[in-house]
């Protein structure tokens, strides 16, 4: 697989339990997202979205299959990376349904925490945080506490945090769920901008009808199997 692919999975399966009670949450899932691309992953409740996200996020181990990240094989019927914590820290960004900012850190340190965890000097980490906050237009709230931010500002800070260690892939778990249409579309606009600017592959798990038309490519997941289709790719103002 070439380095031009952000994340690529082939035949990824996940089975919970054994014997008669076994449940196949994922069945031979294939997916490929290029750097700079934002794809949607949609499906009804219980279809396997969250399981796929957890496998992609190296939080749970798939049963079998193959997964590459930035061209490197990280899973091939078994993890090829010894420290998944470091993998998550340095190479995967996470955006959650709620921002889940650390309440006792200010905005800058919420973003700078990841580079600091990666043992980068504090000054460098904070400079990176300010760069991202500026790009996301929340630099004026750099010293504010998360509780002092609006919902939209908090979500932008969480996007900055996901980008802090320049990961090749970002996994966004329903990032627009609590937002109204205008703010949801604003978040999608930012994700697209960041994907392009930082050449990051972004997978957005959603069932938010407001943002589905904005994807150029969508993976439908149903009963643990994915089907790829072209999206509307509606322009974001």
């Amino acid at each position, binding site marked *: 697989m070439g380095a031009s692919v952000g994340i690529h999975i082939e035949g990824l399966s996940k089975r919970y339990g054994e014997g008669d009670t076994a449940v196949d949450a994922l069945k031979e899932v294939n997916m490929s997202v290029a750097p700079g691309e934002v794809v949607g992953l949609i499906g009804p409740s219980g279809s396997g979205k969250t399981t796929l996200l*957890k496998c992609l996020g190296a939080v*749970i181990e798939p049963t079998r299959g193959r997964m590459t990240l930035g061209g490197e094989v990280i899973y091939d019927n078994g993890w090829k990376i010894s420290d998944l914590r470091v993998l998550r820290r340095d190479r995967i960004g996470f955006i*959650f349904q709620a921002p*889940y900012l650390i309440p006792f850190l200010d905005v800058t340190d919420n973003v*700078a*925490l990841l580079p600091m*965890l990666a043992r980068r000097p504090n000054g460098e980490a904070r400079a990176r945080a300010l760069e991202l906050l500026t790009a996301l237009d929340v630099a004026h709230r750099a010293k504010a506490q998360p509780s002092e931010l609006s919902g939209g500002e908090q979500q932008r800070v969480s996007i900055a945090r996901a980008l802090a260690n320049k990961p090749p892939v970002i996994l966004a*778990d329903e990032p627009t769920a609590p937002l109204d249409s205008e703010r949801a579309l604003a978040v999608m606009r930012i994700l697209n901008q960041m994907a392009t600017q930082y050449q990051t592959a972004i997978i957005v798990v959603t069932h938010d009808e407001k943002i589905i038309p904005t994807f150029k490519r969508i993976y439908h997941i149903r009963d643990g199997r994915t089907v790829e289709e072209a999206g509307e790719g509606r322009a974001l103002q």
Partner: protein
Amino acid sequence: MISLAGRDILHSWGKFVLTGLGLGLLIGVTLTMAGVYRGMVDDAQVLLNNSGADLWVVQKDTQGPYAESSSIRDDVHRGLLGMPGVAQAANVTYLTMQVRKGNTDVRAMVVGFEPGQPGEPSYLVAGRRITRSHYEAVADVNTGFALGDRIRIRRHDYTVVGLTRRMVSSGGDPMVFIPLKDAQEAQFLKDNDAIVNERARTTANPALNRPGVPGLLDAINASQTSNHNVNAVLVRVKAGYAPEAVAQEIRRWKHLQAFTRAQMEEILIAKLIATAAKQIGMFLVILAIVSAAIVAFIIYTMTLGKIREIAVLKLIGTHNRTIAAMILQQALGLGLIGFVVGKIAATIWAPAFPKYVLLLPGDSARGFVIVMLVCVLASTLAIRAALRVDPATAIGG
């Protein structure tokens, strides 16, 4: 790397300080309990120090004069003075009683002593020493008496001519020093009705009131109203003599009990206050357990309140030891706040206690180490809970 624990404490400092305040008061009580025990030990040692004796000679087969009653004749000291190694020997009496102070009573230990001999107050903070043979007193300032005050002891009034400090019994009662003869009278003197009654009984007894023996009845009556007993003889040993060797000679030849300083300390500390010490020790253990439980509960509750943040931290790659260190540092921070508050509180309220509370720096240092250890132990429950958090819970579904 920033201090997550420090930031969390700063973020919710009000909660931390209030919790630390509550914990601190508990630690203050614990330190005070230790101070009460130290005060009791110090009272016992002060009593021995102030007596200025190397040996305590008391009635045979007793552990007097402080732990048990002891009565010996007041001319015994003359014989002791003739023994090798004895430099000074002085009679003393000890009587714990309620002395009148105006319309109220003060519990005090009345000490009868001979001026210039072991047993007299070693220093004064005001006034002068007793110079008259009768009816003058030196009082510890804790009795509340001032110079010139009149103290009522039995049937006589004594004028306070001097004040001393930290002269207390092993029970912590302040001392009042009066001349030995007065003290002997006070210790054994009966009231007038009892004396009249006793004389009538003696007169009616034909064995004691013999017509052919003039003066016998008067002699018997006189002996009944005089006292020639003391509680102990305090002995100072000559330089170059071992107190234990001198004590052995006294036991052998005088048929009296003689205790050295070390033996008297053993009686006072290991025996007289042993039960109280165990009582306080039990309190200390219970307070330590309660403190540990409170710290554990607080830290555990605080950690449970941050489960989602901990899941996010673990998901984004925070090491388990970083999360454990955060919880541990918070527990230690809470312990530090608690200890500082407790130490200040104990220092402020210790002088208000009716008995001496001695807060030793060594006890404080030990207390600090124990508080920190208790916090470390208490945080393990919360750390276990935090380490069990699955990072996957940060992702919905």
